[in-house]
């Protein structure tokens, strides 16, 4: 309920703006709800951008349009409205930007901004720049009420892809989780479980389909406390 409400508030803040968008609305591609859906199909501007060498210097300028929401530091917002981006794998960033631009991940808030990036080279550049930003350690954390359950589930179900410290896997397009905000991950995990994030990996949906809200709360709380090995003292 709270999650739905939060999503509604965020959407309401921007919907009037998005509806009035002069440019064409976001396209709608066939996602996880369609029978022929293939996760991370190697096609479109994504594969072009992945082949290119990103220039962080040019990317810094391209990032200007991202910074009002994700902040100049890339740290996003602890309230879960905007994710932390700093230090994310460029492959993940390129895939998510391309999915949003191509209408495979529905994001009416970000679409107008994402659609201003001009070509695959700019996607590669901005991803290269974001990777250079430092992963924050003061990200939004969960309430810490059931970390033992969270740890148990994470180590059973998540660790094989997202790794022990939430490092993810650049080559497999699995995101860094370390430093991500609790409330953002709560929203995404719930949407992935419920089939609402249309570019989700069906393998992950299978794993978390049986989770209760309580399971998701616990696991995401645990994830919000992960730190990259280099960040540890």
């Amino acid at each position: 309920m709270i999650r739905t409400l939060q999503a509604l508030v965020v959407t309401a803040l921007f919907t009037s703006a998005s509806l009035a968008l002069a440019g064409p609305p976001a396209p709608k591609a066939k996602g996880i709800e369609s029978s022929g859906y293939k996760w991370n199909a190697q096609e479109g501007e994504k594969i072009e951008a992945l082949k290119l060498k990103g220039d962080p210097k040019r990317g810094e300028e391209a990032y200007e349009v991202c910074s009002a929401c994700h902040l100049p530091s890339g740290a996003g917002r602890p309230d879960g409205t905007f994710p932390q981006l700093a230090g994310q794998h460029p492959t993940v960033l390129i895939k998510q930007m391309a999915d949003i631009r191509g209408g495979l991940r529905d994001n009416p808030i970000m679409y107008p901004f994402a659609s201003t990036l001009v070509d695959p080279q700019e996607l590669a550049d901005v991803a290269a720049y974001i990777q250079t930003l430092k992963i924050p350690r003061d990200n939004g954390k969960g309430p810490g009420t059931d970390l033992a359950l969270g740890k148990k589930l994470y180590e059973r179900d998540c660790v094989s892809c997202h790794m022990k410290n939430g490092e993810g896997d650049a080559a497999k397009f699995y995101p860094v989780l370390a430093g991500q905000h609790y409330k953002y991950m709560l929203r995404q995990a719930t949407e992935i479980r419920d089939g609402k994030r249309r570019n989700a990996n069906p393998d992950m949906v299978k794993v978390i389909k049986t989770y209760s809200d309580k399971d998701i709360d616990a696991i995401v709380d645990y994830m919000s406390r992960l730190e990259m090995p280099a960040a540890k003292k």
Partner: protein
Amino acid sequence: MRTLMLMVALTAVTTWAADAKPAPARPADAKPADGKAPAAGAKLDGAKLYVERTCVACHGKDAKTPILPDYPRLAGQSAAYAEKQMHDIKSGARANGNSAAMKGVMHLVTDEEMKALAEYLASLK
């Protein structure tokens, strides 16, 4: 009397809203990109601030091609008006329209910087 009560109630709500904001400003964000605080009395560069404080993302490079049609053009706006709106959106005194989108970044901007930004905007044609 009713007006007074309303005012008290409004103040309470505004104060609550200010207290309930999700996170303190990240100190790193409050500083210029080079990490140095500007020297006292130094002239702030409004054009530079316009990019660094993220105004450019929504209001456009020239401050007159906003990313969405219902965001305002700012080039040539009266400095006094622009400065007041920035103050009011930061404090929460103005919370209508699209100001919610902007409130989230106003923790990046100090009073002196608002002044410099307002003067920069007013100087644009």
